[in-house]
């Protein structure tokens, strides 16, 4: 896809620069002939029209095709990224979300602007120099000496600003984080009467960011200034030199006009590479991060042994790895044989019923699961949103439990893994639920429960200290 795009770009670049030459040639000839009081040659008209039509077509096609490539590449990368194993240590969920959305969207600038500009610059700059050489060797020498100034400036100034720029990006993200943080902690700030103080802090942080950004911009705009200056002074140098040569009759007027019109093509494309590179750097960074992730997909599914039938309670202080161990079982090779309830209720937007049964509906299993999960106070029709709003914490937990039980029953599975199933549920219901779980274990299912509620454990339960 990308390779084909490069080929297309090279083709478009060649056609585009040929059209530029044709346009410059026809217009300069026209000016020269008219100024000399002659009737201009009719052959210039089709040359001009062809050049103009080609320019229009090339830019329309390039815009459309760039978007097509970008859309396809984004879809492909997104699909592969989301097909990844999510239980991995080297990337956080929030980073994945940003990569798959904003990060990829930043690729538009890469495919639509940077790449075409880059290819065009590489093609058109030598072509222009060659045309100059053919038409007027002396001017081509000026080009050869002045054009390299532009990348030279870019590298010099780029080096000087890089460190400062990174620091500035840092403080920009810090501002974003600070804002989120402050908004998240608003209740606390209000409770301690610190909202006015935070308002001042926010103003200060933002003002600091401005001061620091301006420091960076002063230097990096200076690079823009140097480039602009190099380009426009070079054109001025060219124009003045040609002017004096015209004065002495060393060069034809139409050649002079032709060179004047072609000169921007020698400087402009290289100059815009820098700006477009900057605009697309976010997309490039995102894409290379995604490619890294796709290459290094770790499959560390440790073969863990499923628990034996019966009721088992896992205890241990916070941080002893109970949850991790259970997740290794739940996502191990025998994933299909396990019904698992996560520590966070993690409900989906939709009705309570659809949260429990998904697409299938087995009324018998549903009735059993809601009974076993003590879901007596929640209507199955209640609509909840993505954050579980619509239910209290305890209700959400019981819906999550019912979901695991439904899967156990409707798929006739043999292993039930529950991560703190009753931590937000009142004592009366918790006791009932635990008794139900013991009953399920009695029917030959392996039930493992992580808990901190040691008061719910009975002497007959199998206790595992993790």
């Amino acid at each position, binding site marked *: 896809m990308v390779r084909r795009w490069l080929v297309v770009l090279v083709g478009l670049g060649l056609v585009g620069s040929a059209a530029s030459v044709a346009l410059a040639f026809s217009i300069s000839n026209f000016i020269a002939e008219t100024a000399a009081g002659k009737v201009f040659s009719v052959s210039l008209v089709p040359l001009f029209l062809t050049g103009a039509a080609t320019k229009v077509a090339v830019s329309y096609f390039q815009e459309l095709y760039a978007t097509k490539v970008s859309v396809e590449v984004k879809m492909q990368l997104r699909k592969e990224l989301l097909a990844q194993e999510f239980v991995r240590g080297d990337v956080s*969920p929030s980073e994945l979300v940003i990569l798959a959305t904003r990060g990829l969207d930043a690729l538009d600038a890469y495919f639509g602007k940077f790449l075409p500009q880059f290819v065009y610059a590489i093609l058109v700059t030598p072509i222009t120099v060659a045309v100059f050489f053919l038409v007027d060797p002396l001017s081509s020498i000026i080009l050869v000496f002045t054009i390299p100034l532009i990348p030279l400036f870019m590298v010099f100034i780029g080096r000087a600003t890089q460190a400062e720029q990174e620091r500035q990006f840092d403080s920009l993200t810090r501002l974003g984080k600070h804002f989120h943080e402050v908004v998240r902690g608003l209740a606390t700030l209000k409770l301690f009467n610190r909202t006015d103080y935070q308002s001042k802090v926010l103003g200060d942080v933002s003002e600091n960011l401005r001061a620091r950004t301006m420091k960076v911009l002063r230097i990096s705009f200076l690079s823009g200034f140097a480039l602009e200056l190099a380009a426009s002074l070079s054109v001025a140098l060219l124009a003045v030199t040609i002017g004096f040569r015209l004065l002495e009759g060393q060069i034809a007027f139409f050649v002079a006009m032709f060179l004047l019109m072609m000169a921007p093509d020698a400087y402009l494309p290289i100059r815009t590479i820098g700006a477009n590179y900057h605009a697309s750097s976010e997309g490039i960074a995102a894409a290379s991060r995604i490619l890294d992730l796709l290459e290094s997909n770790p499959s560390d599914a440790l073969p863990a042994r499923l628990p034996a039938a019966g009721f088992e309670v896992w205890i241990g202080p916070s941080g002893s790895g109970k949850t991790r161990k259970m997740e290794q079982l739940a996502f191990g090779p025998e994933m299909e044989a396990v019904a698992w309830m996560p520590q966070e209720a993690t409900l989906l937007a939709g009705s309570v019923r659809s949260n429990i049964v998904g697409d299938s509906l087995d009324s018998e299993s549903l009735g059993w699961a809601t009974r076993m999960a003590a879901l007596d106070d929640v209507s199955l029709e209640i609509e909840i949103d993505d954050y579980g709003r619509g239910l209290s914490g305890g209700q959400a937990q019981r819906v999550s439990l019912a979901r695991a039980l439904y899967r156990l029953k409707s798929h006739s599975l043999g292993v039930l893994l529950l991560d703190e199933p009753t931590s937000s549920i009142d004592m009366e219901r918790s006791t009932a639920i635990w008794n139900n779980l013991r009953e399920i274990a009695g029917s030959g299912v392996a039930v493992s429960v992580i808990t901190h509620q040691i008061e719910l454990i009975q002497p007959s339960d199998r206790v595992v200290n993790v």
Partner: protein
Amino acid sequence: MYKARFVFGWFISGLQSLSSLALLATSSWLLSRAAQQPSVMYLSIAVVGVRAFALSKAFFRYSERLVLHDATFRKATKLRVAIYESLVKRAPIGLRDTKLGSLISSLVDDVDEIQNLDLRYRPALIQAVATTLATLILFSWLTPNLAIWMAICLVTVFAATYSLSVVAAKKTTGGISVRRNEMAVEVQRFVEKNRVLKTYGWNQRSSDRIESSAVKLGELELDAARFGGMLQSVLQLFLFGSVVVAAFIAHASGALLPPEQIAVLVLIPLALFEYLMGLPAALQARKKAEIAARRVEDLMQSEVPPHLQVSGSQEMARFSELQFIGACATYPSGREVELPDFELRAGGSVSIVGPSGAGKSTIANILVQFLAVSNGIVLLNGKPIGDYEQASLRSEVGLLTQNAEVLSGTIRANLALAAPDATEEEFKKILELVHLWPMLDAREGLDTEVGSAGSNLSGGEAQRLSMARNLLAEKSLLILDEPTSSVEPALAKELLSNLLNAAQESGVAIILITHDSEIAVLAQERVQVTTH
């Protein structure tokens, strides 16, 4: 203050584009005049002009960008603070609304997007207008005939560009931003709930949904590209058309026109074109900025629900007594909660026990003036609670919630929030009281980083830190809302009885909200609530 800077910046923008136009005009004049081989002195002014305009073009560009960025950042600071202040009025209850929640997550990006209005749209428009006017003035001075034709051409191209941009924005820009948000929500759901989706075999449905919104988004993006291509074509057609018109008129009036002006007439549209080309992108930047600005305005201008506006003018003294008499509260969502009758005196403690969802937390919300009493009476020190001034009330009444809000930064910073002037020793004493000091001592003491949103602390540690903060602030009435939901039960009871003892010693009254009867017995009195 930033307004004057903007005006100055835009003025330089205009000058920059005029320099560019002048550079092309003088250099083409220079060549045409030189071709007639006059004496050098006729050319020297043009030579100086060419050099001067080349310099000023670059110089103006540099100063324009500096001045405009500086002004924009100043404006953004004001906007950020204004947004923050409007959020403060609603927090925390008014921010629970789903629609507002998604607004807040995009606020940071929106502020950046709005900046493009001053930074990209306005300068581009000013430059297009300045170069257009300059071209017309120059042409009407050289050949009035051509000026009329150019004016017609330009009006047509402005109208075409503008209406195409408006149609494009209507058909694509808005839709793209909506679709992108939609997809971001779907991707977020897919990633954050991936384990559950996967366990239950539901991930296919979610990834299908992502795929289909990606396809729709792709179609819209292609539509946008078609419009973009069309806009560029229109502008290019204008360029070539105006070259033809200029050539035609120059040719027709050839005998009347000095030869050196012909090149100027034919080439000026090239310089003008450079600035007109920037218009479509500028119009699109405007559209995006407007969408962002509307979101921010929606937030800032929507009225704060009346039930969230609680504050009187009275100063509150140390807590002495509290009475709930037939009180009710109404949430902005319309949900009404009836509250139990109970009393509490200085140094006393009461537990509010009941199942989740019975509205226990509403009692807390009322007591810290997050929510108004809509019916009945709540008397604090003998006066209706609404009579007290917020800051004064909150310096006496503290609340410790289920999800303790720990702010990023150090332990010290979190404690200083409650008592900016407290000494090192006072901090340590409090941390020992809540059983947090041994853990911190093993790390970096008061300078231990709590991580982003307290991620370096366990749930129990966060609760204890939050408790320490409330004790430091020396509040005289403390509400504990499910304080031990994430602390190991064995420690929970010990921790709570510690705290209750400490409170009793310093005369702090306690309201303990819990679903756990085991914990409720720690309070002297007990109020049972039920679901209605």
